């Protein structure tokens, strides 16, 4: 028997792929959700180039044309026309701009604010934490739609108001989760080491804490985009969102509400678009969460 370091009882079963900080590299992407999101994003950005018609152009002669696969349909309007003869395909494409813009903007805004609050609350603790959490709780109990309605009625409905209204409430959700993350990070040794080395609050927060919460933020953000898109659609549906005549999926559904039997496509197709986009984001978010941070299962 030669003399060597004792091999600690290592698991004899074949080694699984090394655990360790989970990275996106080398993971199989979920192609379908990514594809759907990519398509919609592309459509949103290039709508003016891709769309077959002008979304505002009315043609009373062409009212309520059904989609191409039905009897009276034609390729001139592949998805039919609405009450005012406007091309559905074009309007849906333009609607994507609104939905995605609101979705991404609101979520990143709320995410930034929420992360900042969460980081501060977790790092400073004590009274700062308590105060911030009171505000967060108060915000959490305020209904988003109500606030948006109030804003819409006060200042008038607009893209900016919708984004603001949603962000102002949404950040609270992130703040709570990030704070939790930070609290557990604070227990770890590398923070103590940074402190001993003389790092100040700003440095610790930006260099040590923030990067470690990025995973969580990314997952949350993705999971919430779908929710925001639905809220924006609901607001437009109620008339408190993006004002007409700008095409927005929610208001399109509202417009077609009375004709669901006769011209089903006017309400149905925008709803389908919402479903596809939100589904894609949710699936993507789930995948991200399972890959990066399974602890967030609860969300």
């Amino acid at each position, binding site marked *: *028997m030669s003399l060597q370091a004792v091999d600690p*009882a*290592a698991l004899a079963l074949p080694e699984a792929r090394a655990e360790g900080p989970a990275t996106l590299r080398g993971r199989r992407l979920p192609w379908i959700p990514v594809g759907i999101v990519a398509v919609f994003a592309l459509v949103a950005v290039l709508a003016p180039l891709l769309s077959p018609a002008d979304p505002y152009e009315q043609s009373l002669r062409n009212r309520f044309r059904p989609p191409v696969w039905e009897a009276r349909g034609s390729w001139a309007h592949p998805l039919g026309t609405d009450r005012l003869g406007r091309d559905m395909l074009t309007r849906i494409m333009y609607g994507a701009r609104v939905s995605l813009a609101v979705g991404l903007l609101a979520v990143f805004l709320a995410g930034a604010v929420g992360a900042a609050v969460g980081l501060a609350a977790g790092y400073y603790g004590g009274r700062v934490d308590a105060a911030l959490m009171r505000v967060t709780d108060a915000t959490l109990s305020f209904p988003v739609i109500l606030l948006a309605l109030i804003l819409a009625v006060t200042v008038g409905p607009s893209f900016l108001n919708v984004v603001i209204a949603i962000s102002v409430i949404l950040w609270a959700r992130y703040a709570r989760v990030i704070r939790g993350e930070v609290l557990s990070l604070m227990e770890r040794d590398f923070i103590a080491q940074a402190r001993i080395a003389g790092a100040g609050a700003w440095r610790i927060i930006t260099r040590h804490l923030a990067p470690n919460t990025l995973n969580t933020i990314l997952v949350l953000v993705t999971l919430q985009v779908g929710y925001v898109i639905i809220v924006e659609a609901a607001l437009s549906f109620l008339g408190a969102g993006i004002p007409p005549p700008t095409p927005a999926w929610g208001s399109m559904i509202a417009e077609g509400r009375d004709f669901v039997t006769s011209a089903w496509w006017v309400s149905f197709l925008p709803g389908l678009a919402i479903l596809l986009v939100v589904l894609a984001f949710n699936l993507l978010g789930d995948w991200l969460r399972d890959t990066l941070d399974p602890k967030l299962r609860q969300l």
Partner: protein
Amino acid sequence: MTSAVVDVQDLSTHIVSRWGTVKAVDGVSFAVAAGETLGLVGESGSGKSMTCLSLVRLVPRPVARIVAGRVRLDGEDLLAKSEAEMRWIRGRKVAMILQDPMSSLNPVFSIGMQVREPVAMYHRLRGRALGARAAELLGAVRIPSPAARLRNFPHQLSGGMRQRVVGAMAIAAPPRLLIADEPTTSLDLTIQAQYLGLLKELQERHRLAMIFVTHDLGVVARVCDRVAVMYGGRIVEIGPVRRIFTAPAHPYTRALLEAIPRLGARREQLTAIEGQPPDLAALPAGCAFAPRCGQALERCRREAPPETAVGAGHATRCWLHGP
């Protein structure tokens, strides 16, 4: 010689995983009589725990499957029984104590509920009689103020206490066979000795056959009558404790014994076993220990040695002693 309570022959359990089929338990045979304690020793991954789970047919499905063998409990083959029959046998005839007391008890239910449950199941007691019996059990494992303890919750008890509660649940029937899977590994050293003493006491009182799984040879010396050494899913040596300790036959057993640092011996470097534990998904054709064995013959690498007797009740799988 008393007939064995449990008689295992050629037990094999395979785990199917992404990396291949792992022979977690490979042709394991042994027998334990009433009042006798068999130690099951080996490194992590040698198949000790999987063997125990296989005895009660609670291997993690669907990945793991018992593929061959016979497990006779008082003469009846457990592997041939239906799941319903097995459920009846678990707890009543065969009980098990797990390693980590912190996670063995359900955190949201009281101790009383968890101890009463098996008693109610096995003895059909209700109400006050049930409570009394549960308190009795706690007393039997030397828990102070047993009646009060029934109302406590697991998080209010120390590790040692919790392990006693688990012990109480195990002897509720009482069973014929008690399997203890590293029951003292997670306990403080001072508590360990007490707990081992308790197990011995329970064994004597109920004439239990006991299988004691551990990686600690010191505990084996104290508690076991016989010991089986496992390596790579196989039993490489089995025999009475005294013989194994004084005249180990298998090179692995010898290495394990030599690896124990002894007080008073000259201060040399720690002896250790060269090499790594085997990859169970890719076991070599011959003896699993051959790659690390200083005395390996050419034959050892080619053929897996069968079990050969080297003394009374003492057998080993090694070509050095082989036919």
